[in-house]
């Protein structure tokens, strides 16, 4: 098995039948001693099927696919930002960066936050925020980020790694550009093949459409036309 990098993804079969037909793309959540973990929110047909699978069910899985997050250099300070289920993509990065990383993690409400204890156990700073204020700061990760940048005297050369809803990523990109900070974002699009053939999952960039599955899913935020 090829060792996955944080930010890479897998195409996962959800049924042996013809409906649903296509594999689903899931970020690597965690690489553990005995395998791979994915984290998903039950949302559509595919994830409804996954949640009801019996332990021991064998599914065809393809990957790791795509490009992971470029790791920070020793002189850079990583800021990892997750919105909602976006934690699935950045969690393994947070694990890898360990105490180096600042982590901002936002969700709509407390019950949508996962693994905060695990993150807290190996990080010097985790800021949690919720839209409804049910946990942590009331507000969004974008508010937290702006605040943080305002008083970052001690921090040199920050670099942002973010995954979450597109609106959030667009705001982070704007904030990063305005403050001259490098930012990497992991994007999500509907995928058919996951290997660059169908051209279904494209995103508009400054140099034309690019495939999320092949040139991404991690992109330099400044490249994306938001």
């Amino acid at each position, binding site marked *: 098995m090829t060792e996955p990098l944080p930010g890479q993804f897998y195409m996962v079969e959800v049924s042996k039948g*013809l*409906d*649903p*037909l*296509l*594999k689903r793309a899931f970020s690597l959540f965690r690489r553990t001693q005995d395998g791979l973990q994915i984290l998903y929110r039950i949302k559509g047909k595919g994830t409804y099927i996954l949640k009801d699978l019996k332990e021991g069910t064998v599914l*065809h899985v*393809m990957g790791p696919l795509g490009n992971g997050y470029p790791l920070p250099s020793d002189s850079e300070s990583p800021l990892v930002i997750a919105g909602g289920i976006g934690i699935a993509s950045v969690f393994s990065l947070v694990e890898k960066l360990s105490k180096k990383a600042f982590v901002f993690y936002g969700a709509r409400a407390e019950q949508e936050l996962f693994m905060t204890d695990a993150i807290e156990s190996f990080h010097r700073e985790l800021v949690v925020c919720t839209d409804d204020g049910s946990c942590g700061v009331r507000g969004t990760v974008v508010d937290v980020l702006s605040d943080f940048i305002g008083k970052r005297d001690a921090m040199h050369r920050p670099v942002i790694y973010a995954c979450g809803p597109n609106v959030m990523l667009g705001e982070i990109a704007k904030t990063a550009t305005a403050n001259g900070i490098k930012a990497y974002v992991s994007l999500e*699009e*509907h*995928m*058919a*093949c*996951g*290997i*660059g*053939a*169908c*051209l*279904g*999952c*494209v*995103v*508009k960039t400054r140099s*034309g*459409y690019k495939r999320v599955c092949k040139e991404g899913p991690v992109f330099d935020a400044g490249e994306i036309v938001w």
Partner: protein
Amino acid sequence: MTPHLEVNIGKLRLKNPVMTASGTFGYGEEYAEFIDLDRLGAVVVKGLSPKPKEGNPPPRVVETAAGMLNAIGLQNIGIDRFIKEKLPFLRTYDTSVIVNFFGDSVDEYMIAAEMLSAAEGVHGLEMNISCPNKQAGWCIFGTDPKVTFEVVSAVRKRTILPLIVKLSPNVTDISVMARAAVEAGADALSLINTVTGMAIDIRTRRPKLANVTGGLSGPAIKPVAVRMVYEVFNAVEVPIIGMGGIMSSDDAIEFIIAGATAVAVGTANFVDPGATVGIVDGIIAYMEKEGIEDIGSLTGTVHAG
């Protein structure tokens, strides 16, 4: 004994009847790390136009029951770049390379055919006529038999390569289009292209594709495709390449019995990059089990009427 798998598409001899459907196999290289391309009868590459095309805005694909809708918008790198950057790789394989192409005018089709015919390592051409004609109010070339005849005749004069015309299913009578293409000089016919469809998000009331409508592919369209292959087989004499929702060797064999000489595998490549090779193996197993020595003897053998 080993079953005889070779088939002829006009002058083009394929080592077996399993090809890839244009638009589902990139330029071949995307799949080379998953399968041995030499196992295929032919690689049919993503549709090309003389100039590069950017394609449609996303979302471009959406899954539907037993199928998917796509509106990629014919994004491609253009014929020049294909010849320089992609064809040398394909030439390293011992499999036939068929290039799918299109234009937005009769002139562009002719230019595309000439450019591709001059390139080394292109063994056949497949014309996509399911795209709009800029010179005729953006109506689709392949839905009018006169326009089909005109554009295929024009291309026929510009190439000596085996010429396959890919028919649109979005017509009242596909055998009329098939006859027009054959009278204009097509050596073979591919059918079917995708079936025009639409899906709407009932919460936002917006179409699920940015392009509003798209082409339906996958097992959902297979019975439509099998019926059309059967009708066209009874209408013309040229070989038919059958496609539309082929997921397994059983599906492929069904198309051959309906009248196809060869088959193309499309959406199944997305589900499993190894689908084509599995289908070749399955056809061999079927032939051995049924005592069929030559795959050609199975074409059009449906006991109907």
